[in-house]
């Protein structure tokens, strides 16, 4: 068997002309030589004509063509004439197809050092930019809502109804599970501490106030942010990818009125209802725990009904409406501003959930501080 390792040889016996002879099998896994070896030789010899010859090559594939293409590009850059006339016809033709179009020069601007992403001015301007974008979006939504109030908006009732169903009844199962468990957690948390003071019965007050003011609204909102907010972002992001949003705009319809308003209104209507439902189940969950600790249901509900006050309920409902708006804004904004690829839609959904949860926590804290100050 002859030597089949892929190698190249250079012959510069003729002045100005360099003969490059390739031999062996240039195939995948055969360990083809690196173009850099040839590159240094070419630079050192600086010929005016480079003639390429095949010597005894039985098998060759793309790796040989890739090598030849690099040769050809180098020759073109350094004004060397490349003579390929002694190559097999297939290789010649492939090379001529590959070199038919000049390589594209990528603009330089996109490359910058990663440290520059820590530049405070850049960070500040990025934050300001995203805040401005959010404000602009909220502004557009406000305009659309005003139009809706006057009755001039292109918002369809059918859409609103469908989204109500998606965000309301469809969410019952998960909301039920979460709120019963949260009620039980609150119950255990309080019961252990209160028992030490012989005040076990006050677990009912703790569960009722905790659920009505805080956990009912917050847990519902977290579930809805993951469930509905992400769904909105994915729906709108896919519509952006499919150019559906462009179609809506060119029909002369504002995508905010047509797509965002029904989704937002559906959440605003359904979230308080879901919150009330979650409150009831949370208090029931507390009752289960209290029962386990020797408090009879009658005692528990007696104590609980004394703890229910109208302002606890009102605070919970105000929160739920605020949360609904925030979830819808976060979801729809990420969706509408999404890029046009599958990765971008995924990114939009992630961004929707992350921003929604940040908004929720900040808004919750703000409302709690406000209530504290107002003594409500």
């Amino acid at each position, binding site marked *: 068997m002859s030597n089949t390792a892929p190698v190249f040889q250079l012959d510069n016996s003729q002045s100005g002309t360099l003969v490059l002879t390739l031999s062996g099998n240039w195939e*995948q*896994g055969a360990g*083809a030589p*690196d*173009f850099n070896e040839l590159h240094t030789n070419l630079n050192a010899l600086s010929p005016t004509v480079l003639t390429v010859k095949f010597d005894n090559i039985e098998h060759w*594939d*793309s*790796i040989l*063509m*890739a*090598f030849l*293409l*690099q040769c050809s590009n180098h020759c073109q850059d350094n004004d060397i004439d490349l003579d390929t006339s002694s190559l097999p016809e*297939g*290789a010649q*033709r*492939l090379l001529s*197809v*590959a*070199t*038919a*179009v*000049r*390589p*594209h*020069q*990528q603009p330089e601007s996109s490359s910058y050092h990663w440290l520059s992403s820590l530049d405070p001015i850049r960070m500040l301007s990025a934050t300001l930019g995203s805040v401005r974008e959010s404000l602009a979006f909220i502004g557009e939504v406000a305009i659309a809502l005003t139009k809706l109030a006057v009755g001039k908006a292109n918002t369809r009732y059918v859409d609103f109804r469908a989204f109500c169903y998606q965000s309301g009844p469809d969410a019952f199962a998960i909301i039920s599970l979460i709120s019963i468990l949260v009620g039980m957690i609150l119950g255990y948390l309080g019961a252990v501490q209160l028992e030490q003071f012989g005040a076990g019965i006050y677990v009912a007050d703790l569960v009722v106030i905790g659920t009505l003011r805080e956990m009912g609204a917050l847990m519902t909102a977290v579930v809805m942010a993951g469930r509905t907010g992400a769904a909105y972002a994915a729906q709108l992001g896919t519509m952006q990818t499919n150019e559906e949003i462009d179609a809506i705009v060119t029909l002369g319809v504002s995508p905010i009125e047509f797509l965002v308003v029904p989704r937002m209104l559906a959440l605003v209507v359904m979230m308080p209802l879901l919150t009330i439902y979650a409150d009831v189940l949370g208090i029931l969950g507390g009752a289960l725990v209290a029962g386990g600790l020797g408090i009879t249901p009658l005692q528990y509900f007696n104590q609980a009904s004394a703890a229910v006050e109208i302002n606890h309920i009102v605070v919970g409902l105000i929160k739920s409406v605020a949360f609904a708006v925030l979830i819808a804004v976060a979801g729809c904004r990420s969706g509408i501003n999404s*890029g*046009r*690829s*599958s*990765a*971008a839609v995924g990114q939009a959904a992630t961004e929707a959930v992350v921003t929604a949860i940040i908004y929720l926590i900040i808004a919750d804290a703000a409302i709690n501080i406000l209530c504290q100050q107002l003594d409500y």
Partner: protein
Amino acid sequence: MIESPPPIEVRNLTMAYGDFVIQRDLNFVINQGDIFVIMGGSGCGKSTLLKQMLGLITPAEGDIIYSGQSFVHADSNEQENMRKRWGITYQSGGLFSAMTLAENISLPLQLYTRFTPKERTEIIAYKLALVGLAGYEDYYPSEVSGGMQKRAALARAIAMDPDILFFDEPSAGLDPISSRLLDELIVQLKESIGATVVMVTHELPSIFAIATNSVYLDASTRTMIAYGDPRDLRDHTDQPVVRQFLTRSSAATTEETA
């Protein structure tokens, strides 16, 4: 000397969704080096036939034989091995939008070959240069035009030096100049790498320009009614539907070339 079996042979193929038969009794052979076109009106099952040939849908009856080996009856390992010898471009490109063009082409190479990373980079540069996209390695599919996406998809299809190239509507949505260039590219690549090409298309200019063999699927009789070189069929077929299909736009072709 025994003649080697044709790269693709379709035998008694029946395609159906449940009880609804789309096409029955398809029998044809695709020879080595053919540019084979699957023609037919809308809804006749062209794309379904292609999907069955690609093994994305299992035929209701019949067999598809690649180089003498049945694809339908092969186990999944053998099917994988047969698939590695194919290059496929889909109607809308089918490029992975989360990856750059270089990563798209690199994927089959990473999965199925033992090239070193440096060799891979060189091969990617070469494949992109072949389709006229040299220097576009770091672009995402969404950042280049539709015609460039089609060409990039072609670069991915030829990454593994396939024996058979499948195209689903290669020139759909391209302007006449780009689709002409794409046709020429397909012919040049086919001739230099020696592949067999199978395509679904109803672009008559490109059918007459590059196809060497074809099959016509009829929607009303639910079977193939013509087989052969499309230029031949245009002039000599006894099927009025096929002549109608081929000549209606043949008038358009002469206008265009004039």
